[in-house]
């Protein structure tokens, strides 16, 4: 199933016009997603995760966003595509699931209508055939009584059910790439697990490549083959899940992992729970990025004098051992490098 990647992003840059001046939201992001592979993109709010995927599908308002770079979806550049071709690609090429199921469906149209219009936008399908397909999709995503659900309005469904509908819409044209933008963030943990299972199941059936944007490292460990850590609009570290989560190289990734609550940690002598560690400070505003390493203002290591003035390049830390990827789909896992954009791989909190 490997072979050509579904998506190849090269040097993606997004600049937004804001009242406070131009904001460099995404600064030279490059990654690939293979068929059947799940790439998790993690980072704090404002790290450019969502913007980077919205930019791929041209979903940022053109008046304020300037997008440059290349993004090949099955060999076709999304960023230079004429609008009509881009419209055709949205859906069958790449489906998208958004963060908040409470607002991502149109409140005044029925579920059925919202599914049917998506199906009929990409093929000469009769209304009744599209409706049958819509009911099938709802069954596939595990919505009880799909026939009846077609005539319901979003407000008549729970958040989890709505998110299933959004996933059904995203999958309705069997996309080769599924982008889930914080798709489980607004849901409670049990529903979150169900949604993740659902996506994994559908992915296994259809061989879809998945970009899973989240700030939940627990989700990453459960679902992803590879991880891309974003900070200040840059990829600061990427590699297989094992490499990044077990042997984080960038001080930011180490801080991020260090701030996870450890439920297994022994309580203190008086029974008190060990305090959570945090990464002190806030991410830099995208209107005013530091000249050197983006993490420098908050970095506890600062092992190299160049950190302050020069952006450290994304360099290979190690190569993953053969078969280290979670998915069997990628047999050549040994070639996947573990990279980090830092000179501070040693020391610090590591």
């Amino acid at each position, binding site marked *: 199933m490997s072979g050509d990647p579904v998506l190849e992003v090269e040097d993606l840059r997004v600049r937004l016009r804001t009242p406070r001046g131009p904001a460099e939201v995404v600064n030279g992001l490059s990654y690939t997603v293979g068929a059947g592979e799940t790439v998790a993109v993690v980072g704090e709010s404002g790290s450019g995760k969502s913007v980077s995927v*919205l930019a791929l*599908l041209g*979903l940022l308002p053109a008046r304020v966003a300037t997008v440059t770079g290349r993004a090949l979806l099955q060999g076709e550049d999304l960023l230079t595509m004429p609008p009509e071709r881009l*419209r*055709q*690609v*949205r*859906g*069958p090429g790449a*489906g*998208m699931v*958004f963060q*908040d199921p409470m*607002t*991502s*469906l*149109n*409140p*005044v*149209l*029925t579920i059925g209508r*919202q599914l049917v*219009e*998506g199906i009929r*936008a*990409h093929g000469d399908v009769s209304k009744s055939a599209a409706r049958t397909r819509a009911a099938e999709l709802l069954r596939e995503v595990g919505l009880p009584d799909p026939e009846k659900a077609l005539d319901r*309005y979003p*407000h008549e469904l729970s958040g989890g059910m709505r998110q299933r509908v*959004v996933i059904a*819409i*995203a999958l*309705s*044209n069997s996309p080769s790439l599924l982008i889930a933008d914080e798709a489980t963030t607004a849901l409670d943990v049990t529903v979150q697990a169900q949604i993740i299972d659902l996506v994994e199941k559908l992915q296994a059936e259809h061989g879809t490549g998945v970009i899973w944007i989240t700030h939940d490292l627990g989700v990453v460990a459960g679902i992803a083959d590879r991880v891309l850590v974003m900070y200040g609009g840059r990829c600061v570290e990427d590699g297989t899940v094992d490499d990044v989560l077990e042997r984080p190289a960038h001080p930011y990734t180490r801080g991020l992992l260090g701030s996870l609550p450890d439920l297994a940690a022994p309580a203190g002598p008086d029974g008190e729970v060990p305090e959570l560690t945090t990464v002190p400070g806030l991410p830099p505003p995208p209107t005013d990025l530091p000249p050197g390493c983006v993490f420098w203002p908050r970095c506890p290591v600062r092992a190299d004098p160049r950190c302050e003035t020069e952006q450290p390049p994304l360099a290979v830390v190690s190569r993953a051992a053969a078969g280290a990827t979670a998915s069997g789909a990628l047999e050549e896992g040994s070639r996947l490098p573990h990279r980090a954009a830092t000179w501070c791989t040693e020391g610090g909190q590591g």
Partner: protein
Amino acid sequence: MFALVHLVPGDPVRLALGTRFSQETYDALRERSGLDQPLLEQFVTWLGRAVTGDLGVSFRSGETVTSQIAERLPATLTLAFASILVALVIAVPLGTISALRPRSVVDRVATVISQFGISVPDFWMGIVLILVFAGTLGWLPSGGYVPLTEDPGGWLQRLLMPALVTGVVSGSVITRFVRSSVLEALGSDHVRTAQAKGLGSRQVFTWHVLRNALLPLVTVTGVQLAYLLSGVVVVEIVFSWPGLGQLALQAVEARDYPVLQGAILLFALVFLVINLVVDLLYSAIDPRIRR
């Protein structure tokens, strides 16, 4: 409201009788019209008759109030609906275009136009129109009203200017609402979902933007229509339009209490009915309100 009408200084009987009359005539008329009774009693009597549809008799003309109102109603209905039509024809495209290109030249021009419409007094606009189209150009009659059934051409000619004036005023208000509600709908998450599905921009706009911007539009249109139906006094005077606003004004001048009370009662009813219709429309438009 009843008390307020009666608190207006001036004596209707004195006004009805003119300058020369005897005390006996005065007292007789006062008694006949019930004005010698205590105010509360007058109110109860009036209310009791009003619920049966009897609004009393005009002091001034001696006709029943209901017949006077019925006589003026067609003119007011014509002007109100014509104005709201003009208003919507102006407001929906203008507000939409402004919302689609916020801060563009089009948006700024639309803002100036609607600010102009909101702030320029309607009588001034009316007078200017009369001067230009009735005076200088002589294309249109300066005022009056003929029923549609009698003379359709003359009806339209006379309707054009007053409908334009009130329509521009209402339209300016509605434009601002359309702009902000379309802008809000454009920024909502479900529009992004619709785009991500691969819908064409026209479909996204019609079904996911305009459709959702309809609710505030219905509200403000309802308010404007209620306002127009209760008679646009100044414009009716300027164009000698025999509507309810003019009737109410004449009733105030003559201290014609029954007519004034009847007109006010009707205005209140109009507001109630329009609000009811708007609420019913809401539930037709928005499934979240339906039960």
